[in-house]
Every structure is written in structure tokens, then in C-alpha cells.
């Protein structure tokens, strides 16, 4: 069966890179969303800049290949303009928690109805291995030859504290579960955050460690504090939905059932409104 979601772009990820699994999961996500009544033409994507973002060229979905750190801002703009679309924003850990951290915190705070998938490999791979916002203390890279002097962010804790209404963690080795998480995130009305543990085989090959520590999380925590406690665990790394609550999404809170693109007026309609206003 021909892969309708494939493109002619040459794939340049390192063999064994975790990004392959995310790409494959996304192809499954599109099919699964179709089964839930979300047709492919309503699913659009954005990407930041980095190894993760090459997915944009490899996946035949409409969208916007944005700037470093702005994928989630672009995604919110698309959603604001046409709330009938389902927007999945891909980000690297540098996009999400260095260059674009303010956008992440605010997207969670305002509960924008988008899904953000963070390919967290703990390193700036495309720029040859500098430390990132989730790199461990002591991490050695070309910009920190004596080791990272900073402690890493905990993305799940940040997103929980910022107000995300869907918080999950996936692992690239668990592709089917990852696809299910993204589907659940897309179907969730509100801001969905999915951290994906995605080893870089060249710079941060943590497969062995993750295979030992990642554990399936069967169901979400029942309280916020319990979710925070789960997110803070380091000896074992739960993978699944940590937290999910219902809260009005920002777009709906702003303008209800309005749709700026679908409700775009005719010239006559708009001029009549302008005239009425200055009367």
C-alpha cells in the first residue's frame, strides 16, 4: 500500500534516531484521527528548527515550518484564525524550553487548543551537540567543554504549573502508545503537552537507560499534586497521560462559536459595520 503521507524529501536523520519513531507514530495518528471523524485535511502541523523539524519535510501534511522557538506561536495563530483545524506543533527541547519558553508557558496558561509534541533529546543536535534546556548538569558539549553548569528543566513540571490541561510523556520505543498519546492530545479540547523521550544516537544515546527506567503509566493522576509528584520522579520515568482536566479553551473563551476565516465578511457586509460604528 503506498504511503500517502510520505514525501520525496531525502531523509537525513541518523540511523536509529528517535525521530523516525515520531514520524511513524504521526502517520498512524492521522489514520486514527480519521477514525474519530477528524479528516486528514483538518490536521495541520507546525515545526520549529532543529533535527525534530525535518519531520515537516518528511510528512505530507499541510502546515507551517516556522522559526526556532516559534512553532507553538505559529500553531496558536493558525488555531485562532480557524478553530475548526486541529493543529499539532512539533518542537525540539531547545524550541520549547529555551528560545520559545515564554510561548510554551503562555500557551499552557491560556489553554490554547493546540497539541505540542516536544522531541526531547536533551541536546542541540543539528548545531552539533551543545547543551540544551533539558541537558543534565555536567553535560559536556562544544560550548560547555568542562561540563554544563546548569541544572535541567523538568518540562512536565513546568507545563503542569503553567496550567496545561493535558500533560503526557511518551517514549520513542513505545510507538503505538506514542501514537495513542498524540491522538488523545489532539482530541483533548485545550492545551495538550506531550514530552517525547527521543534519544539522539549521535549525541545522547540514552536508549539503554530509558529502556530500564521508562514505565507504562496506566491512567492519569487523579489530582494535580499527584501529577506533580509523578512528574518529579527520576528513578523511574512514567510514560502515559499524567494529567487531564476540562477547562474552556482560549479560542472558544475569546470568541465562542466564531471562526475568523469561515466568517470572513463580504466587502458590503464589512463596510456596513464600519459605517454603523462611526455613526
Amino acid at each position: 500500500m503506498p504511503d500517502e503521507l510520505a514525501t520525496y524529501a531525502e531523509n537525513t536523520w541518523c540511523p536509529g534516531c528517535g525521530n523516525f519513531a515520531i514520524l511513524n507514530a504521526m502517520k498512524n495518528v492521522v489514520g486514527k484521527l480519521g477514525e474519530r471523524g477528524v479528516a486528514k485535511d483538518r490536521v495541520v502541523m507546525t515545526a520549529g528548527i532543529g533535527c525534530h523539524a525535518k519531520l515537516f519535510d518528511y510528512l505530507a501534511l499541510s502546515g507551517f515550518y516556522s522559526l526556532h522557538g516559534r512553532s507553538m506561536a505559529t500553531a496558536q495563530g493558525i488555531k485562532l484564525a480557524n478553530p475548526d483545524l486541529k493543529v499539532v506543533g512539533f518542537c525540539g527541547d531547545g524550541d520549547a524550553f529555551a528560545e520559545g519558553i515564554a510561548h510554551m508557558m503562555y500557551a499552557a496558561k491560556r489553554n490554547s487548543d493546540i497539541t505540542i509534541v516536544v522531541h526531547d533529546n536533551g541536546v542541540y543536535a543539528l548545531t552539533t551537540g551543545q547543551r540544551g534546556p533539558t541537558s543534565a548538569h555536567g553535560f559536556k558539549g562544544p560550548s560547555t567543554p568542562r561540563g554544563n553548569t546548569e541544572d535541567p528543566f523538568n518540562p512536565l513540571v513546568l507545563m503542569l504549573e503553567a496550567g496545561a490541561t493535558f500533560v503526557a510523556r511518551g517514549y520513542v520505543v513505545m510507538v503505538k502508545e506514542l501514537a495513542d498519546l498524540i491522538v488523545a492530545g489532539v482530541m483533548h479540547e485545550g492545551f495538550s503537552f506531550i514530552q517525547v523521550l527521543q534519544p539522539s544516537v549521535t549525541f545522547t544515546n540514552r536508549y539503554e537507560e530509558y529502556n530500564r527506567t521508562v514505565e507504562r503509566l496506566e491512567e492519569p493522576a487523579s489530582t494535580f499534586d499527584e501529577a506533580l509528584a509523578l512528574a518529579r520522579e527520576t528513578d523511574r520515568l512514567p510514560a502515559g497521560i499524567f494529567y487531564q482536566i476540562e477547562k474552556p479553551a482560549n479560542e472558544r473563551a475569546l470568541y465562542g462559536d466564531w471562526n475568523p476565516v469561515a466568517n470572513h465578511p463580504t466587502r458590503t457586509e464589512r463596510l456596513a459595520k464600519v459605517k454603523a460604528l462611526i455613526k
Partner: protein
Amino acid sequence: MSRDRFTFIVGGKAGEGIKKAGSSAANFFASMGRHVFQMDDYPSLIRGGHNFVAVSTATREITSHFMKADLVVGLDKRSYEAHRDHVADGGVVVYNSDAVEDGQGIGVAMTSEAQKYPNPGLRVGVSGAAALSAVIGLSVDEMSAFITKEYKRDLENNIPFATDIYRAVGEKAGGKFPLDKGDRERIMMTGNQAIALGAAAAGLDVYLAYPMTPATTVLHYLAAHDRELGVVTMQPESELAVINMALGAAAAGARTAVGTSGGGFALMEEAISLAGMAEVPILTILSARSGPSTGVPTYTEQGDLRFALSPGHGEFARTLASPGTVREAYTLAAELLELAWRFQSPAVLLTEKHLSESRMTLDLDIEDAAWAEPLMHEGGGYKRYLDTEDGVSPLLFPPSDELIQWTSYEHDELGVTTEDAAAIALMHDKRQRKSEAVTDHLRTMRTVNRFGQGDTIIFTYGSTTMSVLEALRVGGIDATVVQPVYLEPFPVWELEEYRDSNAIVVEQSAAGQFESLLAEKARIDAGARIRRYDGRPFEPEELAREIERAAG
């Protein structure tokens, strides 16, 4: 004595209702069918300091306030001291005798009078309308109607208070300056209101902005009237969020604009370049304050011209234009949104605090607005970056069965990243042809305004145009004023005849950015220059004298 032109200055502390006193007077003059220009001068604070509003009115067109007032009302000591020299020959100064001892003019115990009523701090500003009513010879009933219309609330206290002030002023100067009615009542608005309405008239769907004076009132106005107009407004977390969200919204098909001042625009530049590469239609309102950096947030300057000419890194089509009047702010905002969509590129409307926040009467034909309607793709085989003759590729928005990929990377026609030498050159050529198409299109449009007749040639642009035109009127000076509305692409084809004109260049810039642009692009060397860069707009009588001196 009836005066053709009348100026009212009211000053006091922030929080005393100075803006309200000024705008009420302006509304009253407009209701008489007169032309009005209102300039608000206020510091960047919420309480205290010194605010004043200068309102000038005439039975003929007027495009500036004057700083020689027929009536000065000072609510506190500082405003009396600041404005006692701003009174015209024969003019009247009304000061607060509770705050000023031994003042020259008419002392009225405004504070003690106000203390007879509740909320005396809020009451004192009504003195402006009361003193004005007395000086222009309104009856108590006419004054009461004026106050009722403008202040609406708390009339049982406001009208008795105003009557006290009115009587005190009336004893000394009642009916001193009766005003003739004008020909007909006109609407009155600020430049920022006109920009908001012009963009709305062109089909705006979404407006995003982070607060930054003097652009902020575009956001306020659209937010206040979002549902009436059908324009969604939002204040995101930063200018970076504003512009990147805006590009996402535009790529989804929404006619989108953003607004800011110089500092915010600096933050937006990376995404302006993205709009150039990804070919996203976006209108940016850039309202300049006195700079550089944080500068003087609530004062005016034309120091951002060079910055606005070439925002963003790399080579792509940019369009920049600046309105000369509030009326032109309306038509130009619409025109620039249309151009952004016609050419799928960033367009910038450059203005200044003096136009953004000044308020004037105008004749406005709402129909005189362009409509942003993009070239749309039909059928299958969509390519976002289809290589076309004029470099403009048809648009398509999701949901669609076609693949629509916008991108910041260099790309092939489908939008897939490329590093191929031939593909890079092909896309550069496409974008260059688009730049040329913008210029060709501007050649078919009105890009330069000319006013008046006379051998003296004056070049100016933006809000300074209003000051120059009023200076010529008040000075009775014959001159030809040339105002390039478009600044990028610069309409050199319109300007060849002025090469040896020995022109006077008038601008609000210390470095003379406009003068250097004229020399660089149009090879017009200025014969003389008049610059102001103290944050204040030109004063027409002073400017008239400077023009006469420069003209020799």
C-alpha cells in the same frame, strides 16, 4: 471679537480629567460644524505630572493645534506656569487661585469650589468646559447641555459646579470670543482610530498587539468594537508571540495585522524576514515615539524611518508607507492590507505619535477603502511556491485535499526544504520578480501627494505634513508641498522634476533621515532643512517663520 481661529489649552495633573476637558471642547467645536485639531501632550505616568491638551478650531480646514491660545485654563500651579506664556494677544488665562498666588489673568478658586461637592479631585476638570462656555458666550442652559452631553454622569454635581466656575469667569471675560458656526458637522477621530477602521474596511479578521505607546490605542479601539466589526483581537505575551501568531493566522487565511512602536518592531524583525521567505501577507502598524530605545514613550519623532525601510534580514519585497493626515491613515491602512495580500509580503504603515493620538475632524468616505482579496488557487496540483511570471503564487488554505506547506527554509515550489544551487537561485529570482511587481504596481497608484502652488518646494512626509500645511495657511506662504506617501519602494518616478529644486526638507529627525533618503534614492539635494527633535510636534506659527527664513 469673533476670531476665525480659536485655540483652547487646558492643563493639569494626570488624573484630573485633562484629556476629557480637551476632548469635550473638541467635540463641542465639531458640533458647531467647525474644523478641529486636538493634540494631547502627556507624560508616561498615570497620576501627577503635567498633562495638557491643545485644541484649535477654525471655520476652514485646520491640520494642527496652535500653541498660542485664546483661552488657557490651568488647573494647578504647574500648568499655569507652563502655559501663561502660551496665551495669544488679547487672550484669557484662567488659573486656579487655590494653587497660584498673584497670578496674571482670571483667578478662580477651583479647588475650594470643587470641595463643596463629592469627589472634588474628579470635579476640577469640569472647569475647562465651564470656562470655555463663558468665554465663547454660551448661556447657562447651553453650557448645561454641553456638560450633559460630554460628561453624562453625576450631572447633579457637575452642572452646579460648572455654573460656579462659569459665573466667576463670565464676570471678567464672558462672551469675549464668540465663535461662528461652521458649514456642517464632521466626524472626528484619532489617527489610530482611522488606522483601525481602515484595516477593518479592507477586510481585517484578526488584530494582535502587545501594548506599546503610541500604537496601543489601535488595540484598544478594536478590542472595544471587536464584535461590532467582526475582528478578533488578542494581546499575546510579547511582540515575538504577536508577529509569529499573526503569521500563523494569515497562513490559515485570516486577514491579519499587528501594531507596535520601535522597540516592539525590533523584536518582530526576525518574523518579518520569515514573512518575506514564507511569503505571508501581514500588515504591521509602526507608530514611532521619540527614541532611540525606550526613549520618550508618549512623545513624537520621525527617527524610525531608516529602520522601517528595511526590516528583517535577507532580500525580499518590503512595502512601507506613511499617512500625512488622519483621513489618509484610513485609506492607507486599507491600501496596505490590500498590498500585503496582493503580493503576499510584509507591508508596514509607519506613523508617529502626533498622528496616532491627535484627533481631528475629517470628511471620510467609508467606501474609499481597498479590499484585500488574494489570488486563489483552483483545482489540483497545488504548489505553494509556484514559479510565476510576477513571482506571486496563488494561495490556498486548509482544510484542503492539497498539500499546503509554508516554510522559513529555502524551498522548492512545493515548499520542501532545499539546498540545491539551482533551486536557491530560482526562488531568489521569483522573489526579485515579486519586488519588481510591487514597484510596477505602485507606478499605477497615487504614491506622492502634492499640495499648493509656488516656486518654493517643500518636502515632508508622515504627520509632519499636517504641520507644514497649517504653517503655510497661517503664514500665507505660497509653496508646493511634496509628500511621498510611499517610502519603500520609493516613488522616484514621481520625483525627477524636483532634482534641482533647492527644496526645503521638513522632518522630525535629528539626523535628517528623510533628507538623506531623498538624496540617496531620488538624487534630490536639499537646499535647506528644518528639523525638530524635542519630542514635540512643530508649532505652525513657528514653523511658518522658519519656512520663510529658509525660503530666503
